[in-house]
């Protein structure tokens, strides 16, 4: 509900179409394009007629924006479809790019590690991937978080290493997946983070699962929860 409260606070007129389910990413990433296409059809039908689609998950947004063209080839000239694939935004992206808001009023006095989920980072450009030669730029989400009073973003030794969730990868390759997750946690611990923040629930579910099993003194929060929790 944090995302709902954030949108409320911004005065955006929005609704949650109850007919929606899943964007089809688990099927797509497993190679089951036919199954994924059925769910993509459903998303298209559900979200017809809206100006924008806002989604508090980088990977679901990326799925729609980057890969729906592959799944729904016959819809490619449908204006509703074009609108869906160009106007679906991750929540922070919506706040920054569509609403033009780059700072957030309020304070959140905690040490936070920003986990830049891969699809949002490289697919949507929510951050500046460490591979690219574009030094000096600051990522969008980082900027938004940095504007919060009292929030200290810790410096990780690997700024955007994958956490190892990877959708069905987490169960197809559980050992590598968990090892990657533990390395990610260790990096945050070394940097002194209290909270791991991300714009992707799925990475956080994986990391939280590892934290709770090992009873580590870390917790995970979605960016929407931080924005919502920031006291004015």
């Amino acid at each position, binding site marked *: 509900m944090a995302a709902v409260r954030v949108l409320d606070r911004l005065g955006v007129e929005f609704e949650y179409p109850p007919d929606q389910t899943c964007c089809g990413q688990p099927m797509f*990433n497993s190679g089951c394009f036919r199954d994924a296409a059925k769910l993509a059809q*459903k998303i298209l039908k559900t979200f017809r007629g809206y100006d924008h689609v806002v989604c508090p998950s980088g990977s679901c947004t990326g799925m729609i924006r980057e890969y729906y063209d592959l799944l729904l080839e016959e819809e490619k000239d449908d204006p509703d479809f074009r609108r869906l694939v160009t106007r679906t935004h991750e929540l922070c992206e919506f706040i920054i790019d569509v609403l033009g808001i780059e700072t957030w009023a309020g304070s959140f006095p905690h040490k936070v590690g920003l986990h830049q989920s*891969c699809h949002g980072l*490289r697919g949507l450009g929510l951050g500046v991937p460490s591979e690219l*030669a574009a030094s000096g730029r600051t990522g969008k989400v980082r900027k938004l978080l940095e504007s919060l009073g009292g929030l200290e973003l810790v410096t990780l030794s690997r700024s955007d290493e994958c956490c190892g969730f990877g959708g*069905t990868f987490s169960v197809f390759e559980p050992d*590598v997946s968990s*090892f990657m997750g533990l390395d990610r946690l260790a990096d945050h611990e070394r940097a002194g983070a209290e909270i791991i923040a991300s714009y992707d629930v799925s990475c956080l579910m994986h990391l939280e699962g590892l934290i709770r099993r090992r009873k580590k003194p870390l917790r995970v929060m979605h960016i929407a929860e931080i924005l919502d929790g920031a006291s004015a």
Partner: protein
Amino acid sequence: MKSHAVLAAGFLKDAGRARWHDEALWYVREKRDRLVRSVPGWEELRDTAHAIKRHALANLSSYLEEFERNAAARGAVVHYAADAGEHNRMILDILRARGARLLAKSKSMLTEECGLNDFLESNGVEVVETDLGERIIQFARERPSHIVMPAIHKKKEEVGEIFHRHLGTAAGESDPTALTRAARVHLREKFLAAPAGLSGVNFAVAETGAIIICTNEGNADLVTSLPDVHIAVMGVEKLIPRSRDLSVFLRLLARSATGQPVTAYTSHLLGPRPGQEMHIVIVDNGRSDILKSARFHRAAFCLRCAACLNTCPVFRRSGGHTYNYVIPGPIGTILAPHRDLKKYKDMPFASSLCGSCSAVCPVKIDIHRQIVLWRNEIVEAGYLGRVKSAVLKTATAVMRNARIFTAAGALGRRALRLAPRFFYNNRLTIWGKTRDLPQLPARSFRSQYKAYRKTGKAGESRD
């Protein structure tokens, strides 16, 4: 044949070693990052390299003719091999015609792909790898675990032990300088004794007939110049149109591969030295099929720099020997299925699809996208496996209907609340072996949202 997941689980049993492997490769990745940031227009260079490859490979037949004409004019003999078997037999024939029973070889992934060493050895030719890493694994009777650092999986103590056994270095000697010196002395003898030398090729220039070889150890220069016969082997994709294109590729290659501004040696060979025979074997071995494929043709642009291996979080934590194909890591993952989709069906699933491979690739191959597309090919061919397919089919059926989806969610929440913790967080499930399930809120988002719409209140903030 064990799958990547099983082999990787084995690799990770020694967590200390796995972290060491990860750190060693991450060090190279960071070196690369520092260097590429110092090159103005790095990203544009990548675009240019991509465009040159696209152009060269789209016009391959005319560039091949041009290259052959120019190389022949400089005194080289150009051969064409359709596949690995033809490549191997051609080389054996060249060696036999000169009575050569010892071949000094510099690094070539193509010969690994073709299985040349085993073929020659079984035909009575002694093959000596002269690249240090390659020589180490040749002694150990292993295959390379990495494209440009073939023995990266070996610790220096292990190399010391191998050299003690094969080169008679002192027991327990693991000083890299001492070991390298021992290898140098040993390899000098081979360089001087070998009647024939074989090298790979990094680039072949159509307009001049030159071949360019990039190495750090200088071994390729000895292999190509000392023996009376030099055989250079290359995949058709190594062809570039003009010499000036090298100004793009040579700036990209070493920086991407090892984080060096340029390799220690960049040798331009324009024909044989006086009195020497030079053969250039151009190999297809499936490359034209890759080029014909609409979904996958860009895989043929690969320079074999291995930047995608160094950056891959899965490769770093599983090692090259967990990939069953001769070329490991992300690039191997999109090349192997061209060879045998069924045999290598596990490889495309050995990826978290983080996309870092595509972001480092100097010729901008859409590696992670191709990995997903290969998964689709595997599903369509019916190789995904019954259980996985059934689970995903059921999930799709549930999610096509919002009411059933909501009911399933409610059922799941209730089951998780009522069941004892060990029932769902036990170590027998794949998820639960290392991870707990998330604590679910008592009420679904749907019902909270409904209440919000009714009352206008979105509940309290968590913090």
